[in-house]
């Protein structure tokens, strides 16, 4: 037996030596590139692919972006155009998600408890006290115009953008110490820098691995060589003047000019042509304000397992329709190759029926946003507030929600009862609870009365950001009426609704998304979609939270953990600690019924050209979009 083991070790050694020789032998031509780039290299317009890639390009495999098991990644073929269509202005969700390159990354929506992998940055180290973070850039990595990515770009982003009062009027809290002061930046060398906080901030790497963060030239990395041309510190007013005039801006508005020419902010515009990026596609042309043409980034820093430089597809053409209702027609006409954001479960039958005619496939994948029911705990009516603050009341409402009906009627069966909220259905028990908490008196029409003799009313308001909101609200109205609580619903335009929320006039809202799966992958999302969303946490609590307890309404002890656990999580010292706090936070939401989530695991269609390869079969729909650089035409 021992001999056998030795034999294996020897064999292994011999093989690895051979492999070593092999890699030396092949090092001459290690990477392949798209034919259109190879032509440019031949013409001398572009350096060879080995010089364009960083010393250690990111090797795109299963488990890098798409979780292992969700897809069997194939080695793709080069070529083709990906057509995406978006209501309103061009770009939209599809282009946006393909272009996201977070500084760090984790497969899927994230993995709490695990250290982040590199993405734009090669790697990072966190000090034991979680106050100092050392980041390592990829040596030889280049912006899409061929200029190297170095710590000069970090320094510029920090000193001239983040600390510039005109470009950053309010310093972002996620980059600040808890007293509001900015973090400290230390440049070590051309490829290494440190970010130093006053307190422990174990959640910091999570802020950098969230795809939702706008990372194309985000707050820590800007193409300084290009952006200096629009920065008043490096370019004089006289030189900026013609550009200001051309764009119809005033003399003092250099900051607006800067944003216009940078990738900060959203959307595509012709002023952004030429701005260097790290994304797989570069904006090259906008033939009209409705259409954007993006072409492969010749300096993209990812290769597939066989050493082919990504992306596979040559071009992205982002077109628009005037209204979202016109999108199905375009899809069925075969004019769209990839549609994620604006397709809803409601139209799935129509899409399925015309699959062959339109040359596309409908894939049902998981949606990352369940719909929550949120209460305005700081409503000015004291009696109403007292009842809603009582956990028994929310428990009764939750018991009255007929989840099976919602799943069948709203989602055609493609959803499951929630786990973050207990999902038993027991209207009899709900009635009992309401009776026992003193809501047992009823008026002549049979509706429950409040202690002050008025009818206990609930008004659900929604701005219906998607087609499933209104049918869900309608069912909730029926469910809650069935236990004697007089419930009505109202569709309100989104601007009016946000005005009403800010004026603290609402009662119950079913009008936002709760990106629970994203939170479960990356708990930093709590800060975004819960703590910074007035709609979800009530006007008074929001003021209390954002003013650090100086203004607003202080939440009762039962609700406080919703806010304080996040603070502790932020200040934790290891990924494991973060994972632990995340579980406590979820338990708090579950046990306090702070908000009610009727259903989770909603399935949503992803429409793809039938010839597209490397589309995941499982997992979240949006991941298929984030992984856009790996798509190819068979």
């Amino acid at each position: 037996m021992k001999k056998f083991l030795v034999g294996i070790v020897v064999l292994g050694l011999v093989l690895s030596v051979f492999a070593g020789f092999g890699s030396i032998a092949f090092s001459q031509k290690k990477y392949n590139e798209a034919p259109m780039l190879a032509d440019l290299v031949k013409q001398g317009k572009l350096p060879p692919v080995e010089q364009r890639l960083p010393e250690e390009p990111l090797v795109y495999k299963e488990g890098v972006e798409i979780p292992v098991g969700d897809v069997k990644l194939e080695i793709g073929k080069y070529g083709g155009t990906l057509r995406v269509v978006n209501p309103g202005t061009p770009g939209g969700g599809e282009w946006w998600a393909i272009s996201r390159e977070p500084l760090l990354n984790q497969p899927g929506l994230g993995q709490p408890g695990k250290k982040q992998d590199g993405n734009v940055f090669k790697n990072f180290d966190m000090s034991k006290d979680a106050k100092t973070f050392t980041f390592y850039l990829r040596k030889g990595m280049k912006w899409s115009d061929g200029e190297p990515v170095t710590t000069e770009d970090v320094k510029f982003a920090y000193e001239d953008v983040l600390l510039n009062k005109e470009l950053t009027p309010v310093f972002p809290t996620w980059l600040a110490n808890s007293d509001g002061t900015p973090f400290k930046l230390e440049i070590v060398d051309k490829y290494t820098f440190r970010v130093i906080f006053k307190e422990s901030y174990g959640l910091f790497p999570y802020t950098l691995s969230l795809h939702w963060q706008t990372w194309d030239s985000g707050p820590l990395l800007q193409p300084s060589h290009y952006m200096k041309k629009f920065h008043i510190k490096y370019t004089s007013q006289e030189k900026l003047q013609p550009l200001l005039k051309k764009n119809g801006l005033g003399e003092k508005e250099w900051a607006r000019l800067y944003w216009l020419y940078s990738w900060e902010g959203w959307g595509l515009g012709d002023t952004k042509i030429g701005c260097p990026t790290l994304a797989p596609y570069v904006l090259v042309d906008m033939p009209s304000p409705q259409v954007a043409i993006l072409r492969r980034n010749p300096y993209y820093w990812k290769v597939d397992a066989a050493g082919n430089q990504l992306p596979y597809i040559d071009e992205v053409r982002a077109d628009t329709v005037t209204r979202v209702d016109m999108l199905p027609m375009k899809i069925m006409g075969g004019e769209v190759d990839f549609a994620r954001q604006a397709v809803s479960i409601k139209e799935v039958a129509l899409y399925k029926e015309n699959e062959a005619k339109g040359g596309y496939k409908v894939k049902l994948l998981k949606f990352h946003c369940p719909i929550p029911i949120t209460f305005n705990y700081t409503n000015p009516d004291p009696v109403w507030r007292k009842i809603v603050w009582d956990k028994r009341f929310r428990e009764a409402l939750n018991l009255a929600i007929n989840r099976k009906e919602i799943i069948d009627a709203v989602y055609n069966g493609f959803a499951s009862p929630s786990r973050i909220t207990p999902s038993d259905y027991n209207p009899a028990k709900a009635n009992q609870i309401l009776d026992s908490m003193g809501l047992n008196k009823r008026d002549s029409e049979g509706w429950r009365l409040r202690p002050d003799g008025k009818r206990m009313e609930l008004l659900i308001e929604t701005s219906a950001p998607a087609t499933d909101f209104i049918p869900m609200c309608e069912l909730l109205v029926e469910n809650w009426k069935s236990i004697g609580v007089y419930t009505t619903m109202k569709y309100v335009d989104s601007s009016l609704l946000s005005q009403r929320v800010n004026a603290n006039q609402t009662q119950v809202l079913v009008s936002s998304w709760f990106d629970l799966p994203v939170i479960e992958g990356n708990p930093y999302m709590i800060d975004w979609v819960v703590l910074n969303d007035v709609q979800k946490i009530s006007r008074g609590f929001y003021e209390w939270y954002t003013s650090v307890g100086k203004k607003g309404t202080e939440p009762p002890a039962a609700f406080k953990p919703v806010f304080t656990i996040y603070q502790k999580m932020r200040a934790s010292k290891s990924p494991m600690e973060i994972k632990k706090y995340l579980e406590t936070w979820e338990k708090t939401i579950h046990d306090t019924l702070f908000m009610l989530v009727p259903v989770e695991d909603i399935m949503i269609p992803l429409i793809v050209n039938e010839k597209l390869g490397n589309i995941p079969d499982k997992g979240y729909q949006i991941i298929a979009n984030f992984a856009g650089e790996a798509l190819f035409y068979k």
Partner: protein
Amino acid sequence: MTFFIVRRLLLIIPLFFILSIVSFVIIQLPPGDYLTVYIEQLRRSGALVDEASIARLVKEYGLDQPIYKQYFIWMKNIITQGNFGRSLQWNKPINELIGERLSLSVLLSVLSIILTWFIGIPIGIYSAIRQYSAFDYIFTFFGFIGLSIPSFLLALIIIWLVYSRFGLMITGLFSQAYADAPWTLAKVIDMFKHVWVPVLIIGMSGTAGLIRTMRANLLDELRKQYVIVARAKGLPERKLLFKYPVRIAINPMISTIGWMLPSIFSGETIVSIVLNLPTMGPLFMQALLAQDMYLAGSFVLIISFLTLLGTLISDILLAWIDPRIRYENVGGS
């Protein structure tokens, strides 16, 4: 006549100012502003919208100034440089946005007006002189159908029929191959392959209306005594008809030329949306929905100005064609 024109021209100036204020105020009326709509949109797509980003957005879009100041800057630029400001939603100068769509919009409207007149006037005349004939009934029947079917519905039905029968997409003005290409002869030909659908649909309801008006007007004229006299004197029927009653019956059309001007600029919004046409109407509607106040304000302003101008033109035309109006006016002043 000159005095009449000059006086009307001068009247336009104060009216224009009142209109500009009204347009700006109307745009501000709905709750919230562009930023609330935009922030809502960002939230829906899952973006972080904290205090820091809101503060930046307010500056980025230049919304940190009081309303009256925004109005004065806007007006000043329009008057001194013909610059309508920047669209918030598209992040582009409004002049560019409108310029790009203007030619197609005008082309579409003019083609459908020509179509309307080409079909409507002859049929109207025919229906009047052959009143209660079989063809009159047939035309009347189709005319009423044309009047009562909203054109956007007609558009939807035609799109669906063509798609389900022939698997063709007839929305848009260009095939995908030409959509981004610069203007060439091939692109123009491609456009004419597509343009007939919206022209026909938009023209349809107008035609029906025109037939009815023309028929009624002409019938009124035909009963008048001068027609009888002329006929009694032995004037050939054709010469009689086109020389007198038809000319007078067309009068009301001329007075509506004024209203046509704004609709040439931005007409048939819903049809254009349904057919996904790159014209003015959809741009205007999107601007209103997004509360893109400068773009929407510019539209309201331009349309009101064109209405003023159009009314003036039709007044002048009428005065020129019909001496009765001219003399009355001079006598009155």
